[in-house]
């Protein structure tokens, strides 16, 4: 698999602060779901903005789909990347659902006839076509994020970045959005980068990168990270549900295998354990 995003030895700081990143390198594989977790202030959202050219690097280089991110390529890079931001309210530009989905298309000067088709198809894909005339004030947070996703897929990018996109949603909205992104990823062979501090959002990932104060302190498969409960606690992250159960079982003197189990695996393990009796 090729690396669709290459971050090479980058350094960056905000004007009045110390360096956030110095000499950071990282590759994102095409077609994979990569989750970047870290606490507030770890630099995870800044990284997204650098990748999309919304902030300028002090040193180093970022290459997206073969194109170095610079002033010259910026439009082509942004055509390949769609970002769903944290606050559903603050990315809704249009007066209605339909107008908002059209916003990105209008920016690319796509003709009206093509736009109409794309807006309709994208809204249907995210299940928001029936809401096309709604104004943002009459939508829930999850619905607004769906609209944001429709606005992205209309432009057929290769990469979707979820920049804490579910952190302001209720659990139902969170499930909905993650399910939708998973579906779109499979259908359209997208690369997903999800930035989050929600451990459950990371469970479905192909790879998890833990960022702390601008440094990668872990880069592994989800199951390798999730069983290290001590490490997760230290860096202020939550422990996955199954690990919490396992931890408590061990406290009750039950012997549990040391490797991480997801919900289904734990379920089967317990069922089997009890059936032997």
């Amino acid at each position: 698999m090729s690396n669709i995003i290459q971050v090479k030895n980058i350094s960056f700081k905000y004007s009045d602060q110390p360096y956030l990143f110095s000499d950071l390198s990282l590759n994102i594989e095409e077609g994979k779901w990569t989750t970047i977790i870290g606490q507030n202030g770890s630099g995870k959202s800044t990284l997204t903005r650098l990748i999309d050219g919304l902030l300028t690097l002090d040193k180093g280089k970022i290459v997206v789909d073969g194109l170095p991110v610079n002033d010259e390529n910026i439009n082509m890079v942004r055509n390949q990347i769609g970002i769903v931001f944290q606050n559903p309210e603050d990315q809704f530009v249009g007066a209605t659902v339909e107008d908002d989905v059209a916003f990105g298309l209008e920016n690319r000067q796509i003709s009206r006839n093509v736009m109409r088709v794309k807006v309709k198809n994208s809204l249907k894909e995210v299940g928001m076509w029936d809401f096309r005339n709604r104004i943002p004030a009459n939508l829930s947070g999850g619905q607004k994020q769906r609209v944001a996703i429709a606005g992205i897929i209309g432009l057929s990018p290769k990469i979707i970045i979820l920049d804490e996109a579910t952190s302001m949603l209720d659990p139902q909205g969170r499930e909905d959005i993650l399910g939708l992104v998973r579906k779109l990823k499979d259908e359209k062979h997208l690369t997903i980068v999800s930035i989050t501090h929600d451990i459950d959002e990371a469970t479905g990932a192909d790879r998890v990168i833990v960022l702390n104060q601008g440094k990668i302190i872990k880069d592994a498969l989800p199951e390798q990270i999730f069983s290290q409960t001590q490490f997760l606690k230290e860096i202020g992250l939550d422990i996955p549900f199954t690990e919490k159960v396992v931890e408590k079982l061990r406290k009750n003197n039950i012997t549990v295998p040391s490797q991480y189990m997801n919900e289904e695996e734990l379920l089967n393990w317990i069922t089997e354990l009890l059936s032997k009796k």
Partner: protein
Amino acid sequence: MNNFLFGRYLPGNSWIHKMSPQSKLLLTFFFVIIIFFANNPLTYGILICLILLSILMSGISLPYFLKGIQPLIWLIIFTVALQVLFASGGKVLWHWGIFSITDQSLINGGYIFIRFMLIIMISTILTLTTAPLAIADGVQTLLHPLKKIKVPVDTLALMLSIALRFVPTLMDEMTTVMNAQRSRGVDFGTGSLRQRLKSAVPLLVPLFSGAIDHAENLSVAMEARGFTDSEHRSKYRVYHWQNRDLLSAIIFLIIGILVVYFRS
């Protein structure tokens, strides 16, 4: 506050809702100009009939409409009262210190009141029946000729549409902040003027800082969505001039001619 209709949009399917925003804007301007030609009971009567017809055609109930602009009516009555009390000329009916009321000032006051009312009512009909974005689009089309003299019409229209889109958001935030500060013991709208001004600070500072946050986030999101400048964009919404626009224009024109003809 909740029933206040001025500047609000009420989705619907009425005759007026379906008119193109450009013609609604033009007719509103036209109506406002005509108001200044009216100067006797007959001409004002004609205009009041037209307004009532327009409200009927907008599908909004009259009592509800009047209740919705009530706060503004008080404002107008206050302005008109000042006008009446300080006017001169005509037969003096009442006199006290620097104040005096004359028959002339009463009549003039009445006319001014009707004028204000008509202007507010026609603009309320416009905003009630036209989505914010459509108004912005209408302005953009109407101001299009100004592009020739380098007026950034597209940018202005986009700014207007985003500003309008954020009105409900900011209203919500205002309600929440007001509630939060009330819980912390603030009495809004009571006490001396100084106290009232003081109680505005805990409301306005959070509102402004919130608005700035929105603006910052929004500008990042817009850039990420490929926005560079407002001149090089295609347009999703296009409005067509239909028969109903033509018919409305004819009615307004006839009324205009009648008013000019019957003015004294």
